[in-house]
């Protein structure tokens, strides 16, 4: 398990639209686009609603609470030497309480199981804050 100070990951290269997602994360908010036409929330963020094609989207704050769908403890770097120092780390697939599914990283614990409850935490990574998840009850 890594101390939060040691976290490393490649930074996102957002589009003009998706930059808003990362900017919200920097402010400690998990916000997803919500379609004004059909009310659908979606992730990963796209300029057009994947339910109806609508382009009137409102960035909407999520509760940050979620349930684990799957997980993997990564023991091999897939990003050269940069990721070696992160090993082992845990990747999680979670369903937000509001519906959308997110792929993210687990911090604050080495162990997790399907069905476990988690909540978002904004980890400092190379000067940005990224929406990672941590088990309910953890700091």
């Amino acid at each position, binding site marked *: 398990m890594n101390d939060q100070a040691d976290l490393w990951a490649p930074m*996102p290269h*957002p589009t003009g639209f998706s930059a808003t997602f990362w900017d919200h994360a920097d402010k400690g908010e998990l916000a997803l686009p919500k379609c004004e036409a059909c009310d659908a929330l979606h992730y990963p963020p796209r300029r057009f609603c994947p339910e109806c094609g609508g382009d009137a989207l409102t960035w909407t704050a999520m509760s940050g609470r979620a349930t684990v769908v799957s997980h993997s403890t990564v023991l091999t*770097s897939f990003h050269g030497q940069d*990721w070696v120092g992160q090993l082992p780390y845990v990747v999680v697939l979670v369903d937000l309480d509001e519906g959308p599914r*997110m*792929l*993210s990283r687990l911090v604050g614990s080495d162990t997790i199981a399907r069905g476990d409850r988690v909540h978002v935490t904004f980890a400092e*990574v190379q000067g940005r804050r990224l929406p*990672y998840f941590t088990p309910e009850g953890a700091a």
Partner: protein
Amino acid sequence: MSGRDAIVLAGIGETRVGKLPGLSSVELQAEAVIRAVKDAGLALHDVDGLLNLGPYVQPSSMFATTLAEYLGVKPTYCATIDVGGTVTGMTMIQNAIWAIESGQCEVAVCTFGENALTGRAVGVQGLKMDNLLGGEEWEEPFGVQGMVIPYALLAQAWRDEHGTGDADFGAVATVTRAHALLNDNAQMTKTMTQEDYLASRMIATPLRLFDCSLVSDGAGAVVLMRADRARKLGARQVAVRAVAQKTTHNSAAALPDIADLGMAEAGARAFEAAGMGPEDMDMLALHDAFTISVLITLEALGFARPGEAGALARSGDLSLGGRWPLNTHGGLLSQAHIGGMLHIVEAVRQLSGDAGKRQVEGARRALVSGNGGVFSVCGAMILEAA
């Protein structure tokens, strides 16, 4: 399609596989094409249709015309197709059939190959490739790169849903390895036991090294033409009874539940179009980028009930001599990873009765499956000896 106008797979080509330093991707594809054309009893100047996929290991564009020029052929139908592992191969075949049917060309060659093992950019470690997969923004900041972690998430979900474990994964790995030992053109040449499987190092839980396919240099190709021409040439004649495809997503960040992956729909549509079912198949060529790929595919296509694919592998039914021999060439896991082109080549070889010591006795029908990305695009193709 039947009768004299039917279009058949009439030639196959396969290069050596493994570590082939000094050979470029276009050179490998050219070699596979030349072998396939010769196998069909034709010459290169007979080729007027050329379909391929460029190398994943090096970003490329217009790779079909690159290959045409390299070979010195001037096709009237030329296209690059990219929908992922083995689905690319069957989609090339489907497009070749349409091109021949509509009069765009008469002899179409479909090929893929690359120098994925020796052609990686200098300094690249692990499995990172130069090409973008499209989901990087929503994967890399979370520690996800490439294909192993997405498949590990699927594998963990499958285990949690069914209470299955290591023995199921090891069964797929060992069955496939046993078949590779009967193939002189395979990267893996040593026996693998269940103990060897369990001793292989963990890459990303629950996937071990022996759950993962190989990285390979090499190429494969197939030739299609009308059946009457193939008959006159004395060439192979394997008919394509059905091809079906389903796309549900692309990146791991949009990974659905296993029950919502597209393989079941693709398989059902292929079986319906062919008027056949799993019980009619004599052999299986299933895309096996990872052991979990095979387990999920067997269940989605109806060869095993949910959670029971591992038991099917352990029963011997997927081994040579069993009911549905699986990946008799050794597959991506133990022969080589050539994007699934060699699954198609092997199926045609088997249905031509030409597979030597690994021949499936009396094989007339084969199910070929593929999936690109992380079961993002799923495909099923049914082949039958004509």
